[in-house]
């Protein structure tokens, strides 16, 4: 079922993506953010909150002087470690309670600070490696079913109900479970702490919540004889911190996009670019597959028109991921089945788009999102739209398959909704298992022509972006019809230039590690 597409155009798109990312990479290399620094602290072992619920990493970074901050939190914190001989967590607590203050250690020499930090860095990376190996071991012993991997969300707002729901979903056939975050969390410039039971439209992403569901799914995996994956969002103002927590709690995937926060959450673009880079370096190391957010273009604007933007964004996300050291097998590029169900031959367009992505990114575990925008309270019709989405996915060999819910327009899924949704996917994908392999597209037919048209338009779009520069292109509303100024949006005050001598020991270690892997 191959589309005959212009391979030259694909190559040109990749070159354009490289040209687009290069200047942004330079910017990234010269900057850091409060969230990056907080994750460095978290990675070193700092956790917990103050009596008024402010996370310790936030307190520490906020307490740094601009000059200290510009050289990286690791150094200042390392001075404290060296001087006090405390474990990072203990030092963090002492700082949080006001018992100690990092400014007191300003004159501790760099050398011992670096040395003591280096040891904790090694310990931290070993821990992440251990989690990664644990995953590999489980995957070998408890193999997943073949793709499309059925993925469902849980989002009751209460982590304990979510746990129940996650386990039930696994039993009903889910291979990946996502705990959806509460509205508004992406705009919080800190990560909430502890188990939570009060979210709106989702449950807070906290390290404790990650652990609760991971443990429950690990137990279920053993019972079911197949490894059930867990995923969450490394997105919003705390992208790298969530990547950190996920690495530690052995999440398997993370929603993580190089531009989503900018376009859809009005997060400052510089903040986003810097944050996504460091998160992805971490994700690469933890063996976490990222899921990019191209589907969002389709929920806010017309899906037929936006197809080239989706493809262009996939090229950009791929390029940024490569630059952060991610191999193709960890780059879950996004797409979605969002064409108006009442459009004649809309199904043909969906097949064209899905197959196009499959051919252009053969090594990527494509993430295919279900119909959402055109779902209504008519759950019966909704279930049918989901069925054709399921069919398209199995025909075009998508990898990560977000199961559509018949109640999409109504509420975050009920336990029974997920069971019906999984039943839908299993039925359709089984009865039409090899359909895609048994047919060919009519040469120059509607499907092929559509795919070719999308590719041509994506190349044109990338050309325009490359010409202006990515930041200026975003300002000029080239993506999703949304304009964002380079210095506007949320979290801009948390971006700062690296001073000479800036030190991020994890970045350094991961880059070296990658060099040695030849990545």
């Amino acid at each position, binding site marked *: 079922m191959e589309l005959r597409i212009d391979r030259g155009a694909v190559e040109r798109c990749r070159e354009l993506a490289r040209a687009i990312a290069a200047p942004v990479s330079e910017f990234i290399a010269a900057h850091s953010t409060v969230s990056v620094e907080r994750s460095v602290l978290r990675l070193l072992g700092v956790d917990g909150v103050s009596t008024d619920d402010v996370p310790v990493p936030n307190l520490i970074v906020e307490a740094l002087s601009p000059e200290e901050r510009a050289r990286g939190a690791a150094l200042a914190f390392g001075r404290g470690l060296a001087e006090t001989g405390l474990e990072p967590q203990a030092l963090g607590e002492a700082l949080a309670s006001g018992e100690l203050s990092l400014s007191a250690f300003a004159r501790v020499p760099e050398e011992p600070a670096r040395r003591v930090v280096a040891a904790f860095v090694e310990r931290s990376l070993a821990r992440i490696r251990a989690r990664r190996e644990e995953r590999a071991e489980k995957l070998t012993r408890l193999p997943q079913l073949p793709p499309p991997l059925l993925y469902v969300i849980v989002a*009751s707002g209460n982590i304990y*109900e979510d746990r129940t729901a996650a386990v039930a979903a696994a039993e009903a056939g889910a291979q990946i479970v996502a705990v959806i975050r509460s509205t508004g969390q992406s705009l919080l410039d800190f990560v909430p702490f502890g188990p939570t039971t009060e979210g709106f439209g989702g449950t807070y992403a906290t390290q404790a919540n990650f652990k609760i569901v991971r443990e429950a799914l690990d137990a279920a995996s053993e019972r079911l004889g197949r490894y059930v994956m867990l995923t969450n969002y490394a997105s919003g103002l705390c992208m790298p911190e969530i990547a950190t927590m996920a690495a530690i709690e052995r999440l398997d995937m993370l929603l993580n996009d190089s531009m989503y926060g900018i376009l859809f959450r009005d997060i400052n673009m510089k903040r986003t670019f810097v944050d996504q880079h460091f998160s992805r370096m971490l994700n690469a190391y933890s063996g976490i597959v990222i899921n990019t957010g191209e589907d969002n273009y389709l929920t806010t604007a017309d899906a037929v028109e936006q197809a080239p933007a989706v493809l262009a964004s996939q090229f950009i996300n791929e390029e940024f991921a490569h630059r952060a050291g991610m191999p193709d097998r960890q780059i879950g590029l996004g797409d979605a089945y969002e064409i108006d169900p009442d459009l004649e031959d809309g199904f043909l367009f969906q097949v064209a788009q899905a197959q196009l992505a499959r051919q252009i990114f053969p090594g990527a575990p494509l993430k295919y999102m279900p119909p959402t925008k055109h779902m*209504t*309270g008519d759950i*019966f019709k909704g279930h049918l739209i989901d069925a054709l989405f399921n069919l398209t996915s199995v025909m075009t060999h998508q990898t990560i398959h977000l199961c559509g819910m018949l109640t999409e327009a*109504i509420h975050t899924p009920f336990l*029974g909704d997920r069971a019906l949704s999984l039943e839908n996917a299993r039925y359709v994908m089984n009865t039409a298992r090899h359909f895609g392999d048994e047919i060919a597209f009519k040469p120059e037919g509607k499907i092929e022509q559509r795919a070719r048209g999308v590719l041509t338009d994506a190349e044109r779009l990338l050309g325009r972006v490359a010409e202006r520069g990515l930041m200026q292109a975003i300002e000029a509303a080239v993506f999703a019809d949304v304009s964002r100024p380079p210095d506007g949006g949320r979290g801009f005050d948390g971006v700062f230039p690296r001073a000479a001598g800036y030190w991020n020991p994890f970045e350094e270690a991961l880059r070296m590690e990658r060099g040695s892997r030849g990545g």
Partner: protein
Amino acid sequence: MGNLVKPYGDTVNDGKVQMSFTLPIPWSEAADEAARRLVGKMGFTGVQIVEGRPIADGFSFFVAYAATPQAIDTSTISVTSAKTHAMSMDEIDDLIRERVGRKLRIAGACIGTDAHTVGIDAILNMKGYKGDYGLERYRMFETFNLGSQVSVEEFVRFAKEKKIDALLASQVVTQKGSDVKNFTALAELLEAEGLRDEIVLCCGGPRVTNLMATELGYDAGFGRGTLPSEVAAFIATRMAQKIASAR
């Protein structure tokens, strides 16, 4: 006490149910509100009419989500299933050989005007159902499959003539209560003919439950998904009991 349960949406005891129905009124915002109040009158709370639309002149269709305050105490429910004994074909044959000492004569039919023989055939035919052999395959059963559209009179006449031990009546069509009507007529006629006590009387069909069957005076009722061996086990056990208590 007990074990009170409520429907579960996404939180324990939230009581959430989904509902759909048609009202014979044209669609409007007022129709949505009528639907909402109607579901309220049914005793639900938090009623959301999530879909309301015209489906024909003067008819509207609605989908609702709502919460019920009702709960059910599962500890009070003791349905006697006709399917409790899990026995193999050989075990069943042995049981009959030992406890009855002769072949049992079974007759099955789709009674009334019902012509849906697939279900009763699944129980009787050699081939069976879902890999479970049918009663014809058992050494200790002699079976007669009378087929479809057998009147109650004909069925009872046959039972009398052939000295049948167990009668198996099937009803698949349920519109306007035709199944209950025919099942009742069969039980009554057997009673009137003085045959009821000697015979193991079973009924089956997709809407049959054991509870309903016993209420109609049957020994057992078998619903959707019944396997032949479940029926065979029931007949054999019941017959053995009858003989034991007759002694």
